[in-house]
């Protein structure tokens, strides 16, 4: 094996994600990624995610040149001894990951388990400002999960129902508990369950609008995070609310870990590799690149996936 390996771990409240980048001497980039439940032990979850991501990239621990931990549990992330590490917030990492996929993006909406963030990027791709939800689960993944549990449905079933919605129905978005009650009231009132399910996603989208309005709505928008990964209806609700197309990266849930791995490479003395610069500057895969959800561990951001190892812009 040749080249340098950089790791990013995003320890979220629900899931811990890891992305590993290898910049090979020939200019190719190999990508590995993994996701695992965070549970109660971030050290354990991060070690597991790193191990799986390294395996999928065909790399081993001792090759890691540098690493970045991000996410709610970033302080608890464990990297192998001797690996230079930094801690960077998920806000910066999501912005970095999304920008790599979509260089022209101006707004990144990250809907995670505990937090929803709206990040505004300036022309140069730097973070101009950001907003995070208040201390409240409404408008986050937890909001959806708790209502799905109340309904006795898996989240995937709620999403499938929502995608069949035909009528516009809006739910209160200010309290998870009261929204659950409102959902039950709507069911009793005879509203279609498909429309009620879509109303839940609209409730989240309305919270996003509150945060987005402050920075204006100029420029392309990308959505990241676990909710966007698992729920097509979330993207639909966002597009409906924003009245613009919203880009969904190939692996939205890994955007923070991807950004962390890129920042690990950029912050490393030896991370200034020509391959990384090519990856960052390559014109392909910008805004408008079609989404990919193939789940192939080696195709983090290719427009279409068939099993090769390119970082961006090439068929894989």
């Amino acid at each position: 094996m040749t080249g340098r390996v950089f790791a990013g771990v995003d320890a979220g409240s629900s899931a811990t994600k890891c992305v590993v980048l290898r910049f090979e001497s020939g200019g190719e980039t190999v990508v590995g990624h993994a996701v695992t439940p965070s549970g109660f032990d971030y050290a354990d979850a991060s070690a597991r995610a790193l191990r799986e991501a390294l395996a999928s990239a065909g790399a081993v621990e001792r090759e890691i040149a540098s690493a970045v931990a991000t996410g709610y549990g970033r302080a608890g992330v464990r990297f192998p001894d001797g690996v230079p590490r930094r801690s960077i917030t998920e806000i910066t990492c999501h912005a970095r990951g999304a920008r790599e996929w979509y260089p022209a993006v101006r707004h990144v909406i990250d809907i995670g388990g505990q937090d929803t963030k709206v990040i505004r990027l300036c022309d140069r791709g730097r973070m101009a400002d950001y907003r995070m939800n208040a201390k409240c689960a409404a408008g986050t993944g937890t909001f959806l999960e708790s209502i799905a549990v109340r309904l006795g449905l898996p989240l995937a079933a709620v999403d499938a129902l929502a995608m069949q919605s035909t009528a516009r129905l809006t739910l209160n978005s200010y309290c998870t508990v009261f929204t659950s009650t409102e959902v039950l009231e709507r069911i009793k009132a005879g509203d279609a369950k498909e429309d009620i399910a879509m109303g839940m996603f609209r409730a989240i989208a309305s919270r996003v609008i509150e945060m987005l309005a402050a920075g204006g709505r100029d420029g392309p928008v990308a959505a990241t995070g676990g909710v966007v990964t698992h729920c097509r209806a979330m993207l639909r609700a966002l597009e409906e609310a924003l009245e613009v197309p919203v880009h969904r990266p190939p692996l939205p849930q890994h955007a923070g870990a991807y950004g962390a791995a890129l920042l690990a490479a950029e912050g490393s003395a030896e991370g200034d590799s020509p391959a990384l610069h090519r990856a960052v500057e390559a014109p392909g895969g910008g805004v408008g690149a079609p989404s990919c959800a193939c789940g192939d561990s080696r195709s983090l951001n290719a427009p279409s996936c068939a099993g090769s190892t390119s970082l961006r812009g090439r068929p894989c």
Partner: protein
Amino acid sequence: MGETAVKRIEIEAAGRLRALMRRYFLDLDEAAKDPGRRVAWCTSVGPCEILAAFGFAVYFPENHGALLGTKKISHEMIPRAAGLGYSAEACSYMNSDIGCDLLGCSPLRAMYGIEGPPRPDLLVYSTNQCRDVQEWFRYFGHRYEAMVAGLRPPRHLGEVKAEHIADVRVQLERLIEQIEIRFELRLDRRRLRETVERSSRLSVLWGRVLDTARHRPSPLTFWDMLIHMAPVILMRGSEEAIAYYEALLAEMEERNACGVAAVPGERWRIYWEGMPVWPRLRDLSEKFFDLRTAVVASTYCNSWAFEPFDGGDPLDWMARTSLAIFINRDEASKERFLEQTFDRFDVDGAVFHNARTCPNNTNSRYGMPERLRERLGLPVLVLDGDLADVRFFSTAQSMTNIEAFIEQMEGRS
């Protein structure tokens, strides 16, 4: 961040402050027990000079509210007040103080060996800061069967005009008359002038202490100021407090002369708008310290840096200063003040604390941060929290917000 162990340099005057506060509270306790003395409760920017000139020992319950917050026990007190019908979203100082009274405990016992706040003979509030103080004092007036009097100055002023001053002056004269009748006292006007002169000297000294933070690196931070501001609130008109601030000022000037930094390796300078988050002071100060960021100025600490007494009518000065405080001004005046202060202290960004139960001391709810960000190009962060009720504050979320804010500034440099 924080990988290099950097030590905080303690402020030497802190020991003297502790002794000063101890004497202040022990004296209050003695006054409450002495049939020959009287205790008055007063709001923090109320007419305390009049009360001191009448000979009352003056106590400020807002200090107790902050203390309950700092001791991280407010959230145990607040539900008690809520049970009496005080909304949990009303002032958390008020609610925790009322709850503390209902529970019959106070941290003052452990700190100074006294039973708690001194029993009042008189309670005087001014609504120049908010309306909640009126309800707060009404509760304790009823509780102790003590006289409650209030000033209701004109609010949300742009320019402080002669007619506003005249209005408050009339209210002050009426207050004096009420006290004279109720307690069969006569106000010694010469004593009032002397008290105002000392109060002004104290306030000016405090302003000079705050101004030492204009130096790069700053010799003290907002977190230090929050501790050292106690005498300027509690002991206005006191020679002891004047001597204390002279010593503190000398120490800060010495720090500046020697280049001693409150945050060694100071990289960023921040303005704090709004109330402190008393239960999380340590967490916040350590986070900023680790990020090599000095919070060098604040609206809150500046609230007791009044304009100097010009030697004219003491009541005019009291009226003018009570009207001119930041919290009593209109949005345009507040914005202008913030813009000028950002510039004076050469800050790199501003944090606005959105205190859930203190709308009057929160300025992030009507677009001000966004307007300032747009106009000045200055990074601005709004932190959700509260002054005392920790249930409204998420430590993890706030720390991420603060770190991201610093990363945002790093990205701009």
